[in-house]
Structure formats: C-alpha cells, structure tokens
C-alpha cells in the first residue's frame, strides 16, 4: 500500500490501518463485525486474513469495546477499536469520559492510553436514528481526549496514522457520507508530516467558512456558488482536529478575512460552532466583523432519512448566511 494511489476515503482508512499494522505489530483491531465481514462499511476488509490473530470481532457491547481497549493499551498493545456508528458511543460514554480520557491524569503519567476509537458518523445516507448523529461537541467537552475528523481521503490516511501513533486517546470520526464519494491520493509515506492543525481548503479574501468533516464539502460547494453567483470569494478552513482546537490557525485566517461563518452538522445549542465563535470574539473582536453566524442542524433529534435534507446544513443555508455577513461593515 506504500505506493501513492488514487483511493476513496474508505480505502484510505483501510490503507492507514494496513500500514499501521505492518509498521507496528502491537497494533490490533477490535470491534463489532470488523473481522470476517470487514466491518459494515468494509473499512477493515481483508485485514482479518492479512493479520491473523490481530483483528477481533467482539460481542455487541460498546462499553466492553472501549473498556477492554483501555486494558489492551495498559497491557502493552496499541488498540484501534471501531464503534459501528458514533451514535452508539453513548453506550460506552462512561468508559470514554471517566476512563479513557483520564488514566494519564489519574495515574500521574504511570499509564497512558494510545487508543484510537474509529467511528462512522454524519448524515446524508438516509440512515435510521443514532446512525447519523454528530457528537463532536460533547467529545470536545471532555478534557483528555483528542478528536479528529477527515474530510478528504488524504487526511483519512494521514490523520488516522497520526491518531494511531498518538500516545493519547484519539476519537477518529469518519464521515460516512464521504466514504465512497471523495477520492484522493494516499501519501507515499505513512509518516506524513503536518498531521496536526487546521487546513485551508479553498482560498478567498472576502469571507472565511469554518467547518470540519462532511460539512467541509457543503462549504466548498457554497463557496463556488458564492463566487460564481455573488462575486463573493470565500476561503474554507477545515479544522480537522476538533480537540484540541487549532485556535492559532483559526484566528489567523479569520483576522485576514474578517467575516466568518461556522458550519456543522451537529445541533446548534452547545454545538462546537459556539466554541469557535466564543474563541474568535474573545481574541479578535476588534479585528473581525461580527456577528459570526452559525449554520447548523436545528435543536431537534435527527429525523428519519426522508427529512434529513431539511435538517442538515445545506449549501443554500450556507450561502444565505454568507450573504448576511457580507452585508456587515
């Protein structure tokens, strides 16, 4: 897999897992149906046969998946666990917040947990309840966890490699809608540099769209429309690491463009967009144009698939918000 290759985001995830397992024989995979089936999305396809004794189908118990990953790490392994859908991480939330996030702190560094938890999330596939939920804000509210989400195949590879190499627990959130719809080139070398921090995805002087995961693509589409139809040139910043946040880059890019819209699929209230706003106004209130607007899901439960288009932050809603902030001084 080391040759540079044109792959889907899903294949990039698989390549990262393969390379990580090849590089470090302490890396093991576990989760529901990750073995013979290769996962419900086939993210782990083939790995069970390629790495005998290192890929484990677990019972249907998220708490045990996260909890035993903690033990596996303490026992000297580097577990990469899959939660079949991020919504079901709540079944294991006590293990995540009370245990995974706190072992280093609690033991003053005696135990640290190089655990990666992978989970598909996000809407657009007409999935039943829970399957499309975006929980990143709740996770970012938990000190001791890192949270990262790729929007491109390249990042799926390099960020997952970085997550697995990280000595601390990382939640790796995979936008399921992008699994097969975005393609990219997997970097030649797994140890790609620059795996941390936010990334600019599109340049533009008038306005900064801040987003992550699946909504980055809605922002890119909105930016095109804004340029073509409204002559507004928007930059798109992909935060990637949601915790810890790359405040420095965020502030830097926002200061240059002055106008900011934040976009995310999670619900509005206490969503991570609020943190982005709070951070920006705190450091840059004399520089940037306010208000910063948020385009988010409304404060309702994720609706049945048929209605999700009304729920998700669409290109239209982003354009509307962008035009509103463009009207400001």
């Amino acid at each position: 897999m080391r040759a540079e290759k044109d792959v889907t985001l899903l294949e990039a995830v698989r390549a990262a897992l393969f390379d990580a397992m090849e590089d470090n024989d302490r890396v093991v995979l576990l989760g529901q149906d990750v073995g013979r089936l290769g996962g419900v999305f086939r993210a782990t396809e083939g790995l069970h046969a390629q790495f005998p004794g290192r890929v484990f189908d677990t019972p249907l118990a998220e708490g045990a998946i996260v909890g035993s990953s903690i033990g596996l790490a303490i026992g000297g392994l580097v577990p990469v666990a899959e939660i079949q859908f991020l919504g079901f991480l709540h079944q294991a939330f006590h293990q995540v917040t009370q245990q995974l996030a706190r072992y280093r702190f609690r033991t003053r560094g005696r135990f640290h947990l190089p655990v990666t938890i992978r989970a598909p999330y996000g809407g657009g596939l007409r999935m039943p309840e829970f399957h499309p939920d975006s929980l990143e804000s709740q996770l970012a509210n938990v000190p001791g966890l890192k949270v990262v989400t790729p929007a491109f195949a390249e990042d799926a590879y390099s960020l997952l490699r970085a997550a697995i190499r990280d000595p601390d627990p990382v939640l790796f959130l995979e936008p399921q809608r992008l699994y097969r719809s975005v393609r990219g080139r997997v970097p030649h070398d797994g140890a790609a540099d620059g795996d941390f921090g936010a990334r600019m995805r599109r340049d533009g002087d008038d306005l900064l769209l801040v987003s992550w995961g699946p909504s980055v693509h809605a922002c890119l589409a909105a930016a095109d429309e804004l340029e073509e139809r409204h002559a507004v040139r928007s930059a798109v910043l992909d935060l990637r690491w949601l915790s810890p946040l790359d405040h420095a880059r965020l502030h830097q890019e926002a200061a240059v463009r002055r106008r900011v819209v934040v976009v995310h699929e999670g619900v509005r209230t206490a969503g991570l967009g609020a943190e982005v706003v709070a951070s920006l106004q705190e450091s840059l209130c004399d520089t940037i144009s306010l208000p910063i607007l948020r385009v988010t899901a409304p404060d309702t439960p994720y609706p049945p698939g048929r209605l999700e288009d009304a729920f998700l932050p669409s290109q239209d809603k982003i354009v509307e918000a962008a035009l509103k902030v463009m009207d400001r001084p």
Partner: protein
Amino acid sequence: MTHVKHVTRDWAAEWATGGGEPLRFLGPDGGLVQPDLPRPPDDLVREALRLMLLSRALDEKCTNLHRQGRLGLYAPVQGQEAAVVGSHLAIDPAVDWLVPASREQPAMLRHGWALDRMLASFLGRIDAARIPDHVRMLPRQQSIAAQLPHAVGIAWATSIRGLDGVTLAYCGDGATSEGDFHEACNLAGVMGVPLVLVVINNQYAISTPVSRQTRATRLADRARGYGFPGVAVDGDDLFAMYEVTRQAVERARAGQGPTMIEAVTYRMSFHNTSDNPSLYRDPSEVATAGQNDPVARLVAYATGAGVMRPDAIEAVEAEVRAEVEAALDRALSHPAPGPEEIFRHVFAD
C-alpha cells in the same frame, strides 16, 4: 381477562434439570415428538399459519421495494416466524404490552398496529405510522437492547399500579451482550415484575455467530443469575414456543415474576437489505438450517394432522399477498411528511 389455570407440566423447571437441549414439541417433519401432549387447538394452528405466511409475504414485498429503491433498509423475519408468532399468541393485546426489538413484524401486527401503518413507517410516512393510542406497544428499537429497561419499567408500573397486564419483550442473541440486557434482567428479578423476555437466538448478530457472542452454552442459563426461570425452546417449533410462553405469561400474571425464554432459531436471510451474508457464512450451514424452516414445519403439521388442506393453505397465501398489496396502496396514499415535521414533537406544544 381470564385466569384459567392450565394444569400441565412445568416446562421451565423440566428444562432446567435437563441436558440443555431446547424443548421441542413439533419435529422438523411436522410430527409431534412429545406424545403425551394434548393436540394443539386447530384454531391456533390456523391463526399462527396465517400470521407466519403474512410475515413471509411482507418480507418478500419489502425486500422487492427496497431493491426498487422505494423503501429504506428492511430487516426480514424469515426463519424466525414460529418464535415470534408462537410467543405472541400467548398474550392478550387488550391488556398486555408488547416491546419489540426490530424484527418482530407479525407480533406488532397481531398486537394492533395495522399493516398499512407499519408499511407507512418503512416508507418514512412517520405521522401515518403513529402507533394508535389504544395499542400497548413500543415502536421498533434501533439501539440494540435499549428497549429492555423500558420493558422492565412498563411491567414494573403495571405491578405498582396493581394492573393486570404482562409485558412481552423481545431481543436478539447479540443484544444479550449489552449492559442494558443485564441491568434490565437484574432489575426485573429484584422487582419481580410481570415480564416475559423472549431472546430470539437466530445464531447471528450481523456477521457475528453466537459462538463469538458468548461462551455460554445456552443464553437461557443467564436467567439463573437473575433469580428467575430461564428455558431454551426450539424456536422453529410453534407449539413449544406457544406453550412455554403461555406458562411464563401465567406465572407473570400470578405475580410470580419474570421468565426468560431463549428461542433457538436461525436467521434464514440477510441481516438487512444492505447485508451480504455470503461473506461470512457457509452455504452448507444455510442449507442445513433451511430444513428447519418453521413455516414448512407448521404446514407439514397442518396438512399431516388434517387441520388444513394444501389448497386451503395456498388460498391463505394468496390472501395475505393481496392484503399486503392493499395495505401498501393505503400506506402510499398517506401524505409524505413535510420539512416542518422535524420541529414537531420535540416537546409538548
């Protein structure tokens, strides 16, 4: 509600002292294998067979609709009809509660959810799909095992309020690994609630066989650890499922607390319409399991015992197909929800 005391053998107790083999009354060839049992009522056979055939027709229709892109994910009942129908026939929808998992369509229909409403739910017509106020049933649950503490709570409320109903809850073999399963069973035992829990052990949780789900020989053995009876039953045997559930319901009504019934059966089809079981199971295994087809078994009994002639059964098959078509028409005539629906029913108005 009647409290008829059926004097008969205590099957749960017999099973507990046996060798762990699931109880069986009706053999795969359609013959009764417990000779001292009274002949099952013919009406029961007819009602059961009709529901089981209806369930098959529904599976077929919904799978086709999914293939045509007209319906989302569908999880078929195929192979589990006797387990679901046999157990549900033992409760009274007028007083008892049904708490399904997500693959108990015939039970939900018999409980009072009209077929067109069920289809409306599969088709995303959420308001048309609303469970009517008088129907004592929870909706299907997407979060595995999460319905079980709800079932315990309902049964507990019944007993706190001194009401009559029994709660019949279902879950899968995979669900038994979740913390919710455990916490619910243990609470049910402590509070002695009128609950009958049917574990549909169809051998798989998606691709995971029950042998990798647990090292327990029988899931029914779990009940002892909660202090109430557990019993494993041949889930493809309508009569055993019915009779064992009936006894459990009777115990629950009499205030004797919960029972766990493990229905040992087989998921004959895919997990759901997005699944490809050939990636993880042998054709030979599927073929062997096919010989236990619960519908074929009951048909063999019904024809062999002279309850129904083959042409009568064919007539029922045609009838249930037509019923599904008619219900589908009604379901499609319900209005599709508009975007404003996402803001309704978050809180009381």
